[in-house]
């Protein structure tokens, strides 16, 4: 490496001379270009990462490609960029861009100082750089420290967010679930009906209100454990008689609401209601005791209304259920929108 010295004129006219090794210590990524346009000296880190024989004695524009502010290949044009931000790359390292600045000196030589810029972290890995490759006054170590510390904290943050998100989902699920039966609860039903009625007449659905018959007698005769067991069987029946997307809710002690999505076929709904009643009338055995219940059901559908309102539909289905009860229980009644009364189908 040449031991040449660079001169720079101070404001009061004095100049300081720096040897090539002093320049390397201060600016390990510099290129010093003589007035003849040939490269005179290259900083130690730059020399280390360059493949081949290096840059010294090569014409500057043979080794360096100036990209920004504009391509150029004339020493005078380059020296006119003094103090500006320059982007360049080296012919021998085609895929590495450097940020650079140039200083022209009195003797016509140029000093070009390079930096890896934002690609510093990649460059450190690619060229296996160590702290010794940078001047201690450079902020490289701080920058890499910051990058690692940030990514470690971000990882912790992300893990916490995942845990919180999971906890939130579980809490949401719990807040919508009936603890005993695992069916949806009243809050979930309100949400479902709210969403369906918000769509106006476009969404077609059936609303079925199921009220168990004789459930109180089971509770009174065989105790609450038997009652709970019966409710679990009811939940199973209601779920198996509906589709996956339908919503089965327990809205009271022995009251259930079924929301049949995309279904307002009265015949089909009636058939489903009868099937439910028939299955609920099967004796339920609990600890040797036989529990017998049935159900009174009332149904309405969204197409009965110009603009379905959840509360109105619930109250109409409820009225139809009351009709079933009044007519002797264990039957299904369809709400009649003409008379605003409920009509028994049989």
């Amino acid at each position: 490496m040449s031991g040449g010295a660079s001169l720079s004129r101070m404001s009061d006219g004095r100049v300081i001379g720096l040897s090539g090794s002093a320049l390397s210590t201060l600016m390990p990524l510099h290129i010093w270009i003589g007035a003849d346009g040939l490269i005179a000296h290259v900083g130690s880190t730059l020399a280390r990462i360059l493949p081949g024989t290096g840059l010294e004695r090569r014409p500057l524009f043979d080794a360096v490609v100036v990209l920004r502010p504009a391509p150029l290949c004339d020493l005078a044009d380059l020296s006119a960029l003094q103090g500006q931000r320059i982007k360049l790359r080296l012919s021998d390292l085609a895929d590495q861009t450097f940020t650079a600045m140039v200083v022209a000196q009195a003797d016509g030589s140029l000093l070009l100082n390079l930096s890896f810029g934002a690609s510093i972290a990649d460059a450190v890995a690619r060229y296996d750089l160590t702290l010794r490759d940078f001047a201690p006054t450079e902020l490289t170590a701080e920058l890499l420290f910051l990058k690692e510390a940030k990514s470690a904290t971000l990882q912790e943050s992300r893990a916490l967010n995942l845990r919180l998100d999971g906890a939130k989902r579980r809490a949401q699920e719990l807040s919508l679930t009936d603890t005993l039966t695992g069916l949806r609860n009243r809050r979930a039903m309100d949400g479902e009906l709210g969403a369906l009625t918000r769509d106006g007449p476009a969404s077609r659905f059936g609303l079925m209100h199921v009220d168990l018959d004789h459930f109180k007698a089971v509770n009174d005769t065989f105790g609450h454990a038997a009652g709970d067991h019966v409710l679990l069987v009811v939940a199973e029946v209601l779920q198996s008689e509906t589709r996956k997307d339908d919503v089965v809710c327990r809205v009271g002690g022995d009251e259930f609401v079924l929301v049949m999505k995309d279904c307002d076929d009265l015949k089909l709904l009636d058939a489903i209601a009868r099937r439910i009643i028939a299955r609920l009338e099967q004796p339920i055995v609990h600890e040797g005791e036989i529990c017998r219940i049935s159900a009174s059901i009332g149904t309405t559908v969204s197409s009965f209304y110009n603009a379905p309102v959840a509360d109105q539909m619930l109250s109409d289905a409820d009225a139809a259920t009351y009709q079933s009860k009044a007519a002797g229980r264990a039957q299904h009644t369809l709400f009649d929108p003409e008379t605003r009364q409920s009509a028994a189908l049989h």
Partner: protein
Amino acid sequence: MHGLVNRSIQCFVTDTYGVDVWARIAASAGLPDGGFEAVLTYDDALTDRTLDAASRALDKCPREMLEDLGTYLASNPTVEAVRRLLRFSGTTYVEFLLSLEDLRGRARLALPDLDMPDLEVCQDTPGSFVLTARWVRPDVGHVLVGVLRAMADDYGALVLLEHEGETDGAARIRISLLDTDFAMGRDFSLAGAAA
């Protein structure tokens, strides 16, 4: 106290002694479910209770346990990030010692709300340094003894560490360099393993 500090204690216990031991400590100290989060801040009293409970559960005096915590932080693979951040400071053990003073500032750059110990390193005779640590918990000095010992192994240096006690809320540690090139240190790449 910053969650990172509490979380370090939790990781130290779970990685070294297992989750069951940690669960016992968490229960007796009345800690939040699921333990500490590194990105939250906790009441200082919680840290006291955790350290007390840990010291009892591990049957170790606080001093010994804090030293083990320091060794763990600077050497355990699951908290490799800490060791890397310490190694960023210098290419030799002496450089590492002298740049410990920058640690607080660097940590602040990354996490403005993380209050790290205020460290001062003076060379009093050739090969002998005094580290002064000021922090809300002066007992951090014992943790630092563990860190300094583990980092000496990391650099392959042979050192003698003496905790000289706490005065005016500051811990003093004397570091005597016996041999800076005692053994092969561990590899360190500035770029990191998976860069």
